[in-house]
């Protein structure tokens, strides 16, 4: 056990040391890989920023989707209160607003302030009390409407089904397209990295052959290359994040002034999370790229 551990420690030490040494001795190749990774991840960052902004905008649009349940006039206030409590506990629901008969009347009066003649024709208060429910996920609007219809105190439920359907169709398509684009960009990035690293590995194929002939296991050969790939990916990610960090603020302002009608506002820690994501992608792509590149040179 101790022997195995010290053997593992020795291999790790060897792999880290030779990855660093190889990175430096083949620095032209290493730099090529770093820049290839940086360029690809820059594009990836741009895409992620656009898609996230889009997502936030779409979310804001979807937030506007609501269901209004008109209540029976004879509904006891206790039941109405219970209904509101139930709705607030409902996982589909984001927000509940109660509008009493009087509130509804007040709102109507306000809306018709310049047509007092119309209001004078109204006797008493024909308006029903209502509960306005906003959803967490606009896709579940039909479910919520069905649930509301089953409530005893609910007279009627209105939702603009075709408007909602259209909005959802657009937002779902935009999200899917964003995911597909980001995924294909990750794929293309991997492809470019694999080929860049493959050049570096090809230049060292004889080295790999000698290693195999003097009895190195595949993983013993692979580890330094994989770590070298990780190092390239990480440096590429750092470069990318530095560039994006410098350009993010001005570009975000530009974007906001361009689409004022949408409440686009990403969380303040978004650039930080983006940098974290970039680093993770860089490491993963560097490791995977090296692994794939070395694989076909290991058959000796």
């Amino acid at each position, binding site marked *: 056990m101790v022997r195995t551990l010290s*053997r593992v420690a*020795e291999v790790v030490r*060897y792999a880290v040391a030779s990855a660093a040494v*190889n990175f430096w*001795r*083949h620095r032209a190749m290493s730099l090529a890989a770093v820049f290839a990774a940086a360029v690809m991840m820059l594009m990836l960052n741009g895409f992620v920023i656009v898609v996230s902004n889009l997502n936030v905008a779409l979310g804001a649009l979807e937030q506007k989707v609501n269901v209004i349940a008109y209540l029976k006039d004879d509904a006891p206030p206790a039941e109405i209160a219970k209904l509101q409590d139930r709705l607030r506990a409902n996982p589909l629901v984001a927000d509940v607003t109660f509008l009493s008969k009087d509130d509804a009347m007040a709102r109507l009066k306000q809306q018709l302030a310049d047509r007092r003649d119309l209001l004078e024709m109204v006797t008493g208060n024909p308006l029903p009390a209502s509960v306005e429910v906003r959803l967490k996920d606009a896709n579940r609007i039909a479910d919520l409407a069905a649930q509301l219809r089953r409530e005893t105190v609910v007279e009627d439920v209105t939702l603009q089904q075709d408007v909602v359907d259209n909005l959802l169709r657009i937002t779902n398509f935009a999200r899917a397209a964003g995911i597909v684009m980001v995924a294909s960009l990750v794929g293309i990035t991997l492809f470019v990295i694999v080929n860049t690293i493959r050049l570096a590995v090809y230049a060292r194929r*004889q*080295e790999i052959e*000698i*290693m*195999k*002939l*003097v*009895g*190195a*296991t*595949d993983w*013993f050969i692979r580890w330094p290359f994989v770590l070298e790939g990780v190092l390239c990916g990480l440096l590429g990610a750092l470069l990318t994040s530095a560039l994006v960090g410098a350009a993010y603020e001005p570009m975000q302002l530009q974007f906001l002034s361009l689409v004022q009608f949408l409440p686009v506002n990403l969380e303040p820690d978004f650039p930080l999370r983006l940098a974290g994501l970039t680093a993770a992608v860089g490491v993963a792509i560097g490791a995977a790229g090296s692994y794939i590149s070395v694989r076909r040179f290991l058959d*000796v």
Partner: protein
Amino acid sequence: MIVLRNVKKTYPTGKVALAGVTLGVPRGDFLFLVGGNGAGKSTLLKLLLRAEAATSGVVIVAGHDLTQLPESRIPTFRQQIGIVFQDIRLFADKTIFENVAFSLQVSGAPRRRKTSDLVNEALDLVGLTAHARRFPGQLSGGEQQRAAIARAIVRSPQILIADEPTANLPPDASWQIVQLLTDINRRGVTTLVATHDRAVVDGLKRRVVELQDGRIVRDQRFGTFGTAPAAAPSPTPSSTFWPVVPHRAA
């Protein structure tokens, strides 16, 4: 130490490289493998390293039956063999010291201090202590080959296999290399040297095995490189196919 029994090797292209070779090399033996191009020397060495698998027959090296050896055990097996290549094949981007140390790292290096002791010992044996920090490109061909030998023996292998170790070297350097190989052999390492170098073989008068067309045609205790290139095989007598009936006049 090495046992070959009726070993045949046919490449996928249909080329028969070994057509039934049987050979025994006892522990501590020193053996020259000679033969012209295409005689099967390279194939034989590849089989001994399990870089190729025999088509049929038995190959036993250092107690491992290579015909049964699973893929995953190949690295462990190779770690017990020292190998020296014709084209030297040092890592150009590693120093001489690192090149030699690499063998030890591959096979589960002992502690670092001991690694450097072993490497220095090997470099001392081949007389390269002064060049430990240099890169292969800064050394002469003979020195490079001696570094390669240090790399091969630093793990104290039971068997040392050298493929044309003196090819491309000037005569004096060649002679140094051969002296080195016999020194190592005297320490009990079974040594097998494939060579084209007549002067080397004739100078040493050791066991010589000659391959020709994939078969062993000679196995001499104190041999020489051999006579001039073997006479071209006699053409098949036409009579084998077309019996010639002596013509007699009626």
